[in-house]
């Protein structure tokens, strides 16, 4: 009936039961968000700091809204404009904030494992909002929530994860989650953007042909090409990537059945997704964003209660 962990560092550490509890609780918070008064007093006495050492629009706003809808007090911290630029270490920064009596930490950091490091050294509950190329657990949870909302179930659902797998924490969290919940997965993308041992490591199928992957799947989760993390040339040009792996309306219409299109955002329009696909009624990209608030409320609610 409760979560098996004190922090949400990654989907890797969760059990299938944990995931089911979070998704079920999120369902109730989604109902709260449709009321005229979209707020409950559950976390009235909890203070949460949002530590964003890396840029974010959706995740930061979504966490902040989730916290406010739960009546928690929130503090926002962004690395730019802080004492990080004066050379303060991560642990010092966090310990200084915690000494002002903060109960929970939501953190995004460009270094993989940063929240795991913090979890070893500080008493507060930590929620990973994305760490480097490791995990982005709340994104995978909201993706799963959106899939089961659209298709009615996760188990047995065929999901194609397409694009820049190599640099994607979203892909890794999604693979962990979908496997734990019994969905089928195909990884698709150019060979240079797919980690060499992924097939053995995760026991997933790899497909280099986009059309074959789309023909097979019920849901295509299309990932962003992360140019900021690429320090070498992995494909010749964005135009060439679009020609081989971009999803166009023409390609979508030529498939034997309609599939659902997802994207964690921000979209590179005209690269991984054409505009008319992103805005089509097969796309649930904006529903994903909407569900994100309910899912994050569930995570905050369940972890805040683990503290006493």
């Amino acid at each position: 009936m409760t979560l098996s962990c004190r922090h949400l560092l990654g989907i890797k550490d969760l059990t299938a039961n944990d995931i089911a509890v979070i998704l079920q609780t999120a369902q109730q918070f989604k109902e709260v968000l449709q009321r005229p008064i979209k707020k409950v007093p559950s976390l009235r006495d909890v203070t949460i700091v949002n530590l964003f050492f890396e840029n974010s629009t959706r995740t930061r706003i979504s966490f902040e809204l989730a916290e406010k809808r739960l009546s928690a007090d929130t503090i926002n911290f962004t690395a730019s404009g802080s004492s990080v630029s004066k050379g303060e270490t991560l642990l010092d920064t966090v310990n200084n904030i915690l000494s002002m009596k903060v109960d929970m930490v939501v953190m995004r950091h460009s270094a993989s494992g940063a929240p795991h490091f913090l979890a070893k050294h500080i008493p507060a509950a930590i929620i990973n909002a994305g760490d480097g190329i490791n995990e982005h657990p709340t994104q995978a949870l909201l993706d799963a929530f959106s899939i089961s909302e659209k298709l009615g179930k996760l188990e047995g659902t065929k999901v194609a994860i397409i694009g820049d797998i190599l640099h994607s924490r979203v892909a890794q969290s999604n693979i962990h989650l979908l496997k734990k919940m019994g969905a089928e997965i195909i990884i698709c993308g150019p060979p240079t953007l797919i980690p060499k041992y992924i097939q053995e490591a995760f026991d997933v199928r790899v497909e280099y042909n986009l059309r074959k992957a789309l023909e097979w799947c019920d849901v295509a989760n299309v990932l962003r090409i992360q140019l900021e993390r690429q320090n070498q040339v992995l494909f010749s040009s964005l135009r060439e990537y679009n020609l081989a792996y971009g999803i166009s309306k023409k390609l979508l219409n030529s498939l034997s059945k309609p599939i659902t299109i997802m994207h964690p955002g921000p979209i590179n329009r005209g690269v991984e997704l054409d505009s008319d696909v992103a805005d089509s009624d097969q796309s649930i990209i904006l529903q994903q964003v909407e569900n994100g608030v309910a899912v994050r409320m569930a995570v905050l609610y369940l972890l805040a209660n683990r503290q006493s």
Partner: protein
Amino acid sequence: MKSLLNSQQIGLTIKRLANQILENHTPLSNTAIIGIQPRGIALSDRVVKEIAAETGTAVPFYGKLDITFYRDDLRSAIHLPSNVDMPFSIEGKKVVLIDDVLYTGRTIRAALDALMDFGRPAKVELLVLIDRRYSRQLPIQPNYTGKSIDSIISQKVKVLWQQKDGTDEVVLLDEI
């Protein structure tokens, strides 16, 4: 273990409670009947059915309220929420809240907070099957009571329902 109400007595009590609501709320066009999740629902389902049988028409406003997010003991235990089903506005309506057992009064306190998030009712009344008087921690009293009992804190009142537990019965358990 001591039996407080048997199946036949529960049936008669529910019939009486339904009639008492009708006495004060006819016509039902401005009254909302709201069961409290999870344990109040079996009772509210029966009361609503009884009212419908008596009047010959379905109860116009019947909702289900979950109070988990409004509890005052969130720090001490995890409670998982149940479904909320409030397909109407309660603004200006007379509300009858229904729960199986009234004990400390804390559930009803939370229910009142939860209710106000759905609008401003004209009036709120409380119906319970069992009233454990002398156990109250808050100034809350029922308007309609199935049976009042005297019990001590170490005892537990359990309401069993046909659909879930195979029989309708209210029992008093002595916890060791």
